């Protein structure tokens, strides 16, 4: 194939892998399709303006607060030379939003409205913005930083911020959409949102009404994904270098530290105090060892399979808006779709005792999260150089694409793993009889108060998130040597 005819982001040049990735991507949308088909046959549409108002207030507040904490934290992370700050940044994402609601009540704060619910969601969502901004800043060519410093030293204003702005915006929009689909916090305080309307309608088997309530959300997600497809990706051509120092660096680190202390360290300390002793902690962990292992198995399978799929053909795809739509719908939607689909295909019975349907639903839900970091990992010029050097296709993939793909795959895998660990809705609908994930156990126990069992489980999940993230980052940094010369 000539260079001119080759698609720019087809690193291994294989049409088969592109077609395979597209086919799997379509398969991942099948549960959503099944749900939509079920809804289309049901009839009955409804929209709630009050629920929409609350949803916009809640998600908007969450996005703004995530920006306020996430952008400085991202700048601070981009200057970090060690790996552990990245791993620790993921930890707040695994504090279930319902625990923030519990903390709110324990502090005897007034009944929150939609905006205050947004504050609770931002507590777990700011790392999304921080990590995206940090990843974007890591791609600034060293030469640009040098040039900006030589020209007067305003690196942040002239180079870094313009570079990070699309990532910050994308992060804020992702937080907005995640906030709009959140159920547990607004439900705790009886704040009606689109998500609660979807639950209410699905509970009454009114799937069409549920879908109609979700449609604007889906449309918003589609529009966002469309915009994101137009944002040029800037592959990392050479290692960047720190560019912040003095007061700005101290300020960024201080904001990051405050955000992390408030949303990760504080809950961890509260949980540790609630558990009371190492012995009690060990006891709870041993009692729930099976569910912890099951959680790890399911989350690991979903994360591993998604990363493998996204690595097949790391290009841009027209299906991205649909994958993002799957992310912003409540988790029960793809789960119900997967169940319906399995019923139509007659594979429900053979799959019921495995976690295959559960893994499929989780993959549907988080396909976008795995796909986005992996697309377009290398510059076209590098591929062309490899081809001009008559490098065999497999070798070019191994020596050019893989080094760029590897760290991103590790990061994407870690994020998907952490998100899967925290999912509940799909586990209730698709979990094999006799098995529960750790988060299901935790939520069941939360009904009786936030006792040492809940606290110990939350601590284990937070530790698992930090450990897995650290390992993923460690693995990611041990990438194969890039092509020389």
């Amino acid at each position, binding site marked *: 194939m000539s260079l001119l005819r080759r698609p720019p982001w087809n690193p291994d040049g294989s049409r088969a892998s592109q077609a395979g990735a597209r086919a799997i991507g379509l398969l991942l949308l099948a549960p959503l399709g099944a749900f939509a088909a079920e809804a289309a046959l049901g009839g009955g549409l409804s929209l709630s303006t*009050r629920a929409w108002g609350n949803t916009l207030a809640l998600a908007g507040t969450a996005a703004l607060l995530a920006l306020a904490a996430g952008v400085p934290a991202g700048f601070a992370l981009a200057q970090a030379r060690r790996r552990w700050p990245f791993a620790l940044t993921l930890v707040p994402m695994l504090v279930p939003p*319902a625990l923030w609601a519990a903390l709110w*009540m324990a502090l*005897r704060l007034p*009944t929150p409205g939609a905006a205050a619910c947004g504050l609770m969601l931002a507590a777990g969502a700011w790392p999304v913005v921080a990590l995206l901004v940090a990843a974007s800043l890591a791609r600034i060519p060293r030469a640009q930083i040098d040039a900006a410093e030589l020209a007067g030293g305003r690196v942040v204003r002239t180079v870094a911020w313009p570079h990070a702005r699309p990532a910050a915006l994308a992060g804020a929009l992702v937080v907005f959409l995640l906030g709009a689909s959140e*159920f*547990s916090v607004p*439900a*705790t*305080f*009886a704040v*009606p949102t689109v998500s609660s309307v979807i*639950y*209410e309608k*699905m*509970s*009454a*088997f009114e799937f069409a009404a549920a879908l109609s309530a979700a449609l604007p959300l889906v449309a918003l997600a589609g529009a966002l994904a469309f915009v994101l497809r137009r944002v040029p990706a800037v592959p990392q051509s050479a290692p960047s270098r720190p560019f912040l120092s003095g007061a700005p660096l101290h300020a960024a680190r201080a904001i990051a530290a405050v955000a992390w202390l408030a949303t990760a360290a504080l809950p961890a300390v509260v949980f540790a105090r609630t558990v009371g002793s190492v012995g009690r902690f060990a006891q709870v962990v041993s009692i729930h060892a099976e569910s912890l292992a099951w959680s790890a*198995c399911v989350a*690991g*399978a979903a994360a*591993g*399979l998604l990363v*493998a799929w996204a*690595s097949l053909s790391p290009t841009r795809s027209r299906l991205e808006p649909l994958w993002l739509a799957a992310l912003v719908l409540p988790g*029960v939607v793809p789960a*119900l779709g997967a*169940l*319906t689909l399995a*019923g*139509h295909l*007659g594979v*429900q*019975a053979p799959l*019921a*005792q*495995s*976690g*295959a349907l559960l*893994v499929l639903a989780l993959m549907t839900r988080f396909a976008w999260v795995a796909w986005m970091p992996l697309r377009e990992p290398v510059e076209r010029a590098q591929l062309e150089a490899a081809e001009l050097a008559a490098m065999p296709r497999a070798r070019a993939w191994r020596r050019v694409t*893989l080094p760029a793909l590897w760290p991103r*795959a590790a990061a994407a895998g870690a994020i998907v793993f952490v998100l899967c660990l925290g999912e*509940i*809705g799909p586990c*209730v*609908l*698709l*979990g*094999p*009889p*006799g098995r529960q994930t750790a988060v*299901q*156990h935790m*939520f*069941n*126990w*939360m*009904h*009786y*108060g936030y006792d040492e069992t809940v606290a110990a489980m939350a601590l284990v999940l937070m530790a698992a998130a930090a450990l897995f993230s650290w390992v993923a980052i460690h693995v990611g940094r041990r990438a194969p040597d890039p092509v020389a010369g």
Partner: protein
Amino acid sequence: MRHLNRLFALCVLALAGCSRGAPHVVVYTSVDEIYARDVFEAFTRETGVRVKAVFDTEEAKTLGLVNRIVAERASPQADVFWNGECSRTAQLKAIGALEPYAPASAKDIAAEWRDADGAWTGFGARARVIVYNTKRVAEPPKTIAELAGPEWRGRIAMANPLFGTTAAHMVALGEEEAVKLAAALKANGLRLVGGNSHVRDLVARGDCDAGITDTDDVWIGKQRGDPIEMVFPADGTLVIPNSAALVKGAPNAARGRAFLDWLLRRETEEMLAKGPSRQMPVRGDALPAARLRIDWSRVAASEELFRRLRSVLEL
């Protein structure tokens, strides 16, 4: 890439290898895990049959299991549905997802607690009660209507009436009465929360002085030392039995029937009565006399009531 492939293969094998062949019965239950687990273990001890349970969670608001049973109708995976209330069970009956079965062990349960067609049987009940803080309330309210009085202004809490037992309570009151009560409570500074356990927690902490909740939530609070007590409303108490049913097309129907026989016997009711939630046996005279009557099949069909409640309570 080779390592990744091996990892995926291992994951797939691990997932596929999760099925086991020991004799078992599959029970889908919305009953809280902490109560149901003891019952399942007792059944396994006595019969040698393992119970594979699927639990709902508070977060899913009973949406999970009922929708799962509906979606699995073509190829049912559950043998028994054990529900903490009756409206969703009645809903399943209405769409033909249940198999009529009248356990011999439940013959002494009054007709009031059984489905007329034998699709489900009620047992071990909870009730809707007024919970109050014993440190802050000297003279507890006797009726729910009293909570709309000026002396309780800004001091009361209730769960979202669109879900769960609160929804059933509203239906039992009747549409006009329920909307009138909701409007009066709202005007009196009602604090609406997501669930009945939150109502109890607000009252226990003194953030509210009284609220409407379920007996099991109060008992759990009392056991952990919360300063709360409860009153069975004199203007009518809604009693909410558990309900148990055989799923139509159950893959282990014989073991499902055996489980129902065991679950619905007097001894199991007594076991639940001694458990942490102190569920009241429907056999005997433990239930409050002034009871609200309810047609459980009407709860899910009360769309107009819920629309009006949504409007009145700004939900």
